[in-house]
């Protein structure tokens, strides 16, 4: 039964909802469907085929994509791990550090990069590497990714930590645990859903980043987004759709894991 205030009673709400869902998902669905197209055309359907997936793995561009995928995944893995570790320390300090003077300032400084236009961060990072004379390549991408992933990892961890009362650590210390033991045995496991969510978010953001990566990557080192962009410049082939679909599957898997972790925690 819908009550008077139910949004479903507003006229046109169903149509607007449908329109929004269509705009959001139609391109993704089309890309996914056409990645299975037997044709070289990206608009004409000629039957079901896995040829473009085969092309990604064994075709003429497969070497380039394979290297890009390795770069992307290793960078995402290392950057997400490092930024999550830093974000966890930061959240512990800011949420549990009492009322220190620069508490609000620290919080602002950590979250600010989320609001700075990415192009500004990209240019700034490039200038930074140039001015210290650091050769651009894999390591510059990694360093930049660690830095810009921190706020993404930080937010879910902080949200989780604010829901944990400090009596749990007090109870642990009351039961003869040192501060370090209380952190490791009690606080850290309780923060874990937030840490996992932060890690997954950082991983996806790193995997997906184009602008900053493109600025700091240097010649010859590609990640999947920059490799795809490079390919597209020479004309869109259906193999790009196949790669995009595979990336989409990875993202959906990550989101699903994050959802399951959150769900499991609520039910126990």
């Amino acid at each position, binding site marked *: 039964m819908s009550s008077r205030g139910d949004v479903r009673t507003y006229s046109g709400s169903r149509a607007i909802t449908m329109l929004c869902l269509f705009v959001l998902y139609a391109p993704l669905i089309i890309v996914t469907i056409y990645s299975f197209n037997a044709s070289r055309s990206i608009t004409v359907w000629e039957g079901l085929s896995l040829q473009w997936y085969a092309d990604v793995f064994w075709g003429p561009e497969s070497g380039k994509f394979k290297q890009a995928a390795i770069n992307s995944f290793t960078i995402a893995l290392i950057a997400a791990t490092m930024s999550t570790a830093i974000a966890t320390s930061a959240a512990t300090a800011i949420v549990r550090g009492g009322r220190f003077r620069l508490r609000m300032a620290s919080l602002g400084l950590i979250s600010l990069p989320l609001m700075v236009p990415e192009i500004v961060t990209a240019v700034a990072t490039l200038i930074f590497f140039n001015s210290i004379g650091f050769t651009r390549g894999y390591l510059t991408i990694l360093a930049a990714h660690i830095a810009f992933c921190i706020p993404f990892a930080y937010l879910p961890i902080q949200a989780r930590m604010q829901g944990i009362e400090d009596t749990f650590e*007090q109870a*642990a*210390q*009351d*039961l*003869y*645990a040192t501060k370090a033991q209380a952190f490791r*045995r009690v606080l850290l496991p309780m923060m*874990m859903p937030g840490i996992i969510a932060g890690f997954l978010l950082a991983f996806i953001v790193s995997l997906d980043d184009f602008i900053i990566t493109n600025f700091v990557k240097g010649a010859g080192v590609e990640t999947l987004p920059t490799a795809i962009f490079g390919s597209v410049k020479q004309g869109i082939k259906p193999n790009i759709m196949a790669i995009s679909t595979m990336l989409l599957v990875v993202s959906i898997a990550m989101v699903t894991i994050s959802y399951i972790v959150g769900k499991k925690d609520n039910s126990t």
Partner: protein
Amino acid sequence: MPDTRNAIDVRNAVKRYGSFTALQSITLSIRDNEFFTLLGPSGCGKTTLLRMIAGFEDVTEGEIFLFGEEIENLPPHQRPVNTVFQNYALFPHMTIEENVMFGLEMRGSSRDAARKKACEMLELVQLTPFSARKPSQLSGGQQQRVALARALAPQPKVLLLDEPLSALDLKLRQAMRSELKSIQRETGITFTFVTHDQEEALTMSDRIAVMSAGRLQQLGEARDIYERPVNRFVADFIGETNLLDARLEAVDASVATCRLGNGLTLECDAIGNARPGADVHISIRPERMTLAAANGDPWRGTVKENIFVGTDVQTVVQLQGGIALTVRTQNSAAGVATILDPGTEVAITVEAGAARMLED
């Protein structure tokens, strides 16, 4: 030197937060093996004192001794006292058994020894069938018992309980009172219990410390505090009472004669050094007065209302001079026979020794 036979000795303990003084020089001793209660309204400093004993709050000034050993500078994990927290603070990611084992393992017990002891403790609180569950799968009362088992498992020298029953419903709270008391007797561990519920304090405690506004108001056995409160705060906070303003007329040996504002006089035990002519206060418990049909006695008034509260009936009687007294009559055949309708004139008899003179 503090008495090493006392479980806890608090000496001139002061707690200040900036310019706010939460505790003003508290000195008290908690004896070994007793059920000791810190009782007071919220904000009186009772929880602060408990947290100072546990080690969660620094002591601004003063000392705290545990069996003669000075502990106020030790971190919480080095104090052999354990706490049952108000919200239980059970570790949600551990099973009930792991929760109870935690303190034992942190103290260095082997896993097997800790498991064996945890089994014993869960048996004591009758939760053996639940040992493999997570805290969120237990009811509030069961969680409360797990918190108790977890805190008792390492055999602390003193167990601190911070309003542990306040989250339970009435029936469960009453059952837990006697269970707590019997566990205390069985284990022989000193319990220090914090509560704002005077009934809880009266029914469980060997001794009670009544606190208000950061000060210790009175310390004594339950009956002592109820029958012989030292000031208006204690008389009013513990149980119900009628507080009346009076003037001390005369002191003869140990008997003081006080005159109320309406001219009626009362005799009570003389206390303190109040001189005749001083303003004092009188406390009379409602159950220490009886009603009868008016008979010309000066202690008479008009029934304003009768309030039925189940076990007894509270009758508000309006005396001359704007004084109203509440009288409690037991809900028995004999008691109910003395209840008169509102508007009727009634005589009040104050039992001998029922009036208590208070200076403050």
